[in-house]
């Protein structure tokens, strides 16, 4: 019997549904020495702001932070593509010793002159936090001279977790909001928040809202435009997806501008429909919005349902493992997979909070393993123990799934087709079907029964 040791400190970040007590620890800093799948503050800020396509994104630090985030997110733009270039102050040793404010100033000035962006985001990386450049002052100065908002993003990598990076991004967006003209905004209008237009999903969602008679003032930040964000405070409702990233901003807008917000998910038929109904309910004086929403849901579901049923017949009974960034996404995935007749045997997230895990626990069947901030050993162990057929995760999880000979679906930055909305549900189902039933797995040792016996018997044991 093989054992995978697990640190005492991590024991309570793993829970098996049905066992007692439920005392899920989460929102902890990753242990030093962990092979966590998480990232840093900068990463959080960068992914949230990245889709703002007509803004300049200057990364103040050594080259790596800019190189690794150059065009890695499939956040589509319908116009400018400035966000897909990589700008760095490329700090050198002398800059670290003598400071790099002058360099930052020169870089910003030059970039703004050449690219004429509508705003600039200046990301601080670890080193900037240590050498103590006054990024704020440089931004203020350049902003005044150039006549555009130049916004510092306080995203020093070590100053917390990815979530703190989301918060820093929200703070930067908050400085833009409230500076635009709102006079011509319709009383039936929303901001779409926490939707990043990966694979064109924001376009689809916006189109749904348009069809039911709701105007979209801004999308934060998918296919984002500075001018739209500036007037976002004119919207009547904030509709927040990916709640981990955008809730701080929605709360701020509620406080400052009195705009209420609702949490939604656009993933899966149930949640997508609910997202439309919830918005419609917010405008009770316009009953036609709800009627149109119902009509839209009806026609879309009718359109995709026959195909979904066919796919369901093929994948029903298959077992899925989910490991995603935010827990909210996991809820939707569980529902969507259930619609396909699949069972979720493992559900985990990098950044879920206590409440999230309670909801997860209540949603899951007995025996389902729930993980917070897991490492590859744990993931692979439970996937084999639970005999999963499918793994849903991000870039670092994909090859782990394939090595074990099971299907994979990227539900993160590298999805190639839209998975949100009704059309997206169909795409998702097709992708699941294609990967789970791929003929390649029949050659994998896992499937052909050649698997070494000890792997089945792996247990996780406390090490101390």
């Amino acid at each position, binding site marked *: 019997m093989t054992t995978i040791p697990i640190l005492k400190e991590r024991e309570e970040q793993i829970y098996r549904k049905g066992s007692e007590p439920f005392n899920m620890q989460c929102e902890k800093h990753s242990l030093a020495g962990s*092979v966590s799948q998480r*990232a840093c503050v900068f990463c959080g800020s960068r992914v949230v702001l990245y889709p703002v396509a007509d803004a300049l994104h200057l990364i103040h630090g050594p080259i790596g932070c800019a190189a690794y*985030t150059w065009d890695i997110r499939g956040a589509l733009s319908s116009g400018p593509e*400035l966000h897909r270039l990589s700008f*760095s102050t490329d700090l050198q040793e002398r800059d670290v010793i003598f400071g790099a404010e002058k360099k930052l100033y020169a870089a910003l000035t030059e970039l703004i002159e050449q690219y004429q962006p509508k705003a600039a985001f200046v990301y601080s990386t670890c080193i900037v936090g240590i050498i103590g450049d006054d990024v704020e002052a440089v931004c203020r100065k350049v902003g005044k001279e150039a006549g555009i908002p130049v916004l510092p993003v306080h995203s020093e*990598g*070590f100053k917390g977790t990815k979530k703190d990076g989301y918060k820093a991004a929200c703070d930067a967006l908050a400085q833009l909001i409230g500076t635009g003209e709102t006079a011509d905004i319709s009383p039936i209008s929303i901001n779409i928040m926490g939707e990043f237009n990966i694979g064109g999903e924001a376009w689809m969602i916006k189109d749904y809202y348009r069809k039911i008679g709701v105007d979209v003032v801004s999308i934060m930040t998918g296919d984002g435009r500075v001018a739209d964000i500036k007037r976002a405070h004119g919207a009547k409702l904030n509709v927040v997806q990916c709640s981990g990233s955008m809730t701080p901003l929605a709360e701020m807008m509620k406080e400052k501008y009195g705009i209420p917000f609702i949490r939604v998910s656009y993933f899966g038929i149930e949640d997508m429909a609910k997202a439309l109904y919830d918005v419609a309910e917010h405008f009770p004086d316009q009953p036609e919005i709800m009627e149109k929403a119902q009509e839209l849901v009806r026609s879309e579901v009718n359109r995709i349902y026959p195909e979904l049923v066919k796919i369901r017949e093929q994948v029903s009974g298959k077992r899925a493992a989910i490991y995603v960034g935010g827990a909210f996404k996991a809820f939707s995935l569980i529902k969507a997979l259930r619609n396909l007749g699949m069972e979720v045997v493992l559900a985990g997230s990098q950044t879920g909070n206590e409440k999230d895990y309670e909801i997860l626990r209540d949603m899951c069947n007995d025996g389902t393993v729930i993980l917070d901030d897991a490492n590859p050993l744990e993931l692979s162990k439970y996937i084999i123990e639970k005999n999963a057929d499918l793994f849903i995760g991000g870039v670092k999880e994909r090859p782990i799934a394939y090595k074990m000979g099971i299907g994979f679906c990227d539900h993160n930055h590298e999805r190639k087709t839209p998975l949100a909305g009704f059309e997206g549900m169909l795409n998702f189902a097709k992708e699941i079907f294609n990967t789970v039933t791929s003929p390649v797995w029949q050659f994998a*040792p896992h499937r052909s029964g050649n698997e070494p016996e000890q792997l089945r018997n792996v247990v996780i044991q406390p090490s101390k």
Partner: protein
Amino acid sequence: MLLKHTTTKIKERSALTVNPAKTCQPIGAMYAALGIHGCLPHSHGSQGCYAYHRSALTRHYKEPVMAATSAFTEGSSVFGGQANLVQAIDNMFTVYKPDVIAVHTTCLSETIGDDIPQIASKAAAGGKVPEGKYVIHANTPSYVGSHVTGFSNMTKAMVDYFAEPGGEKTKTVNIVPGYVEPSDMEEIKRICAAMGIPIIMFPDTSGVLNGPLTGHFKMYPDGGVKIDALKKTGQSMGTLALGNLASSAAGFALDSKCKVPCKVLDLPIGLTGTDMFIDALRTMTGENVPDSLMFERGQMMDIISDMHQYFYGKKVGLVGDPDQLLALTKFLVSLDMVPTHIVTGSPAGKKFEAELREAVKDVPCDVNIKLGGDMYLFHQWVKNDPVDLVIGNTYVKYIAKDEDIPYIRYGFPIYDRIGHSYLPTVGYRGGIMMLEKILNALMDRQDRDATDVNMELVM
């Protein structure tokens, strides 16, 4: 056009890099460390660094990439990362059970001044390093050099920590393969085996980052140079360091530590590059070059002669890492092609530039060369003086598309194609693969652009 912003007017930029042609040291150190069997690379810095490196390597190799992090917090960046690293070493040996932990630093830990050897000995003194296990380290500040420097530093660390001086010299040759793909390392081993020469190659990522589907996830794949072998590098009769920037530091360190003579060569890319490598092996060991290798060499020459009319006079733009650029430029010149624009992001030094200039001195046009340049400049050069072929990593595809130029993927990273992990570009066989790639790119273009009248069946 994604790169519509690129202008033809070139302005000197001092404060700004646009679309980098390099990345930072730690990823090179991580890649090198993965070439030790049973090694867990460890990033002493914030959690983001290693997440980015793992993601980048995963996208490039389509393989799981294992590494750990000190997960710096605000506290550790004020008071130093000692506590984090000691705890990390303990946790890693407890949970992931590596044979070696290879610590590399980051801009953060370098700037706050953490002393890794001191911290590692503290961990050892505290009983955190099990018997027969090792912690090695390399200093890899992100604001110095590039990913190639990081590779070089970690490779040198293997010598500093493991090579044992003294003892009888053996007939073994050390090979430092350079910052090349696992496929290339495999090919170098095959060539040496064909010559009957026992070697120790370090690092060796073959079998680590191009492994098979086995039905289970292995934290430590079967490949990689073993610790015992690294210890014995001090007894080898000589070292061949392939690629000056990536490999010579380790080679020279071995020379001064263990009196193992080191010869620095170009990467064995192209006919003469491979000739030099094989000749150095022959001279060092006295072994004959077997017919099988001469046969491969003959095949490669045969292809060049068969197709030389498609090569000559073709202008090429190259962007990539210094050692590769130098060897590749020499190869292209030997094919009668015309390297026209050559850019590396790495600050590769005057000696490198002089060597590169020497390699293109007979080329019938002015050659643009830039060290510490970026893709933006490369694109500007290509716009101003168009070429027939561009060679570079995946990011070059935008330039190739915008300018409608045939393009070969070569270098790091390649995020959008497979092949580099499995098919070598070093040695004669690798040379044949390169020739095929170059010809395909040029001839596909000729076919695409041919009118019905000019469309040719036989080429």
